């Protein structure tokens, strides 16, 4: 997928798009891969997603995880290092394999310094991400597992632009911060309602619209990132 399919890059001027293109190289990301892990000899990177979907995970001391967001081609991963503020509590786990464009954070930081207008586009994306995390954090507090699962599956389909998802119960348990058996039960409920089906280990969303009212009518509003 070309770099232009990324939502952030798409909003830049043609000249700025070319500048970003110059410092990026295309990469393939694979489900299960961890991005931006602070490894000793590796320099920080930024990824503009163009097909891959990446979950934002928080882990507690006991290594119980919880997903607070899902980023697709509308966004980027690794903006924190560009701003020198690494939120060390977030881990980036690739949920859906796909393409991305990778650049050295230092190169992108320099570009931002030279082209102040770009910071505005970054700001917009970062704010949308903030609201997205707020919405998911709120749902974690109040919604039952079935509703949260429906929400996450609808979100995953939306971000991946696919209704066929390779998501195991184990993975979904990690995303929702619940035990695997809770996912199995919740998935069973959604299956009974005719909203999803599992075929040969692949989750098929039979009724995306049906999942979404379970999620919210809010998600159908323009710009609402759920």
């Amino acid at each position, binding site marked *: 997928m070309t770099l232009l399919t990324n939502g952030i890059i798409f909003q830049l001027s043609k000249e700025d798009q070319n500048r970003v293109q110059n410092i990026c190289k295309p990469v393939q990301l694979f489900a299960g891969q961890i991005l931006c892990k602070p490894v000793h000899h590796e320099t920080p990177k930024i990824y503009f997603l163009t097909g891959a979907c990446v979950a934002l995970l928080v882990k507690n001391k006991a290594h119980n995880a919880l997903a607070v967001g899902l980023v697709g081609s509308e966004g980027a991963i690794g903006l924190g290092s560009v701003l020198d503020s690494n939120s060390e509590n977030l881990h980036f786990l690739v949920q859906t394999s796909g393409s991305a464009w990778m650049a050295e954070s230092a190169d992108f930081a320099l570009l931002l310094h030279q082209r102040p207008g770009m910071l505005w586009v970054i*700001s917009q994306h970062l704010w949308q991400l903030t609201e997205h995390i707020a919405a998911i954090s709120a749902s974690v507090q109040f919604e039952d597992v079935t509703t949260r699962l429906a929400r996450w599956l609808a979100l995953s389909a939306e971000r991946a632009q696919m209704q066929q998802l390779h998501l195991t119960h184990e993975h979904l348990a990690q995303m929702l911060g619940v035990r695997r058996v809770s996912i199995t039960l919740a998935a069973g409920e959604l299956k009974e309602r005719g909203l999803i089906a599992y075929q040969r280990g692949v989750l098929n969303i039979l009724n995306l619209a049906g999942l979404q009212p379970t999620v919210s009518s*809010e998600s159908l509003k323009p710009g609402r990132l759920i």
Partner: protein
Amino acid sequence: MRSTKNIQFINFVILIDVNKSNFEFMNKKADLNKIISFLPELVYEEWAPHFERIDLETGQVLYEPGRALRHLYFPLTAIVSWVHVLENGSSSDVAMIGREGMIGIYLLMGASQTYNSAVVLKAGSAIRINLSVVLNSFNQGNAVQKVFLRFTQNLMTQMSQGAVCHRHHTLEQQLCRMLLMVLDRQDGNDITMTHELMAKFLGVRREGVTQAARRLMEENTISYTRGHVVVHDRKSLEKRSCECYDIIKNDQDNYIKLNH
């Protein structure tokens, strides 16, 4: 016996003095909000004359979806809760903002509306500035925008860590975390907050908070009388809290260090 003219003169002098000390007051007060203290000199000089010091009441709604915001708020002693309202009507406090931050930042991040609300959690003072002044002021440039971006990242850390805290930690741990976060946003150990309010912030019933606070009170880590929580032993609170408090605090300290 004073003539009328002299009295008028005296009044005039008093007025000047009040204005001058008001401005000095503003200067000193500005240091008490971190975002204001991070503003570059030129931006600060342009905004400062338009700062208004106001008092905020508990429960006051500063903005909500659909209600256009006309001011930016920089809390001083007040603490504001960022609230997300779910479709089923329940509202979840996802972050708290005090003197380290600002309310209305979405307007400076290219968003024209928000899906959240800002509700005053703890009454206190704040600085308010008319949005038109901020939007009309000359291009602030990257330095200022970076301050807002870093604050936004700080918010994300608070919310994301809060989510995992809700999911995986005990109510007692969450209560300790919340109390510590409030202490960091005020001076002194006396927190003006009822059990109801704390319960609302934590998203639980009042009885839950009373229960969770019981052990803390028995150990005299805190005491509670008529809407005031007094913290006697901060170290003990820190010990009883989960790692979420440290993570949020470190992130906040880094954000402050970066901007200086």
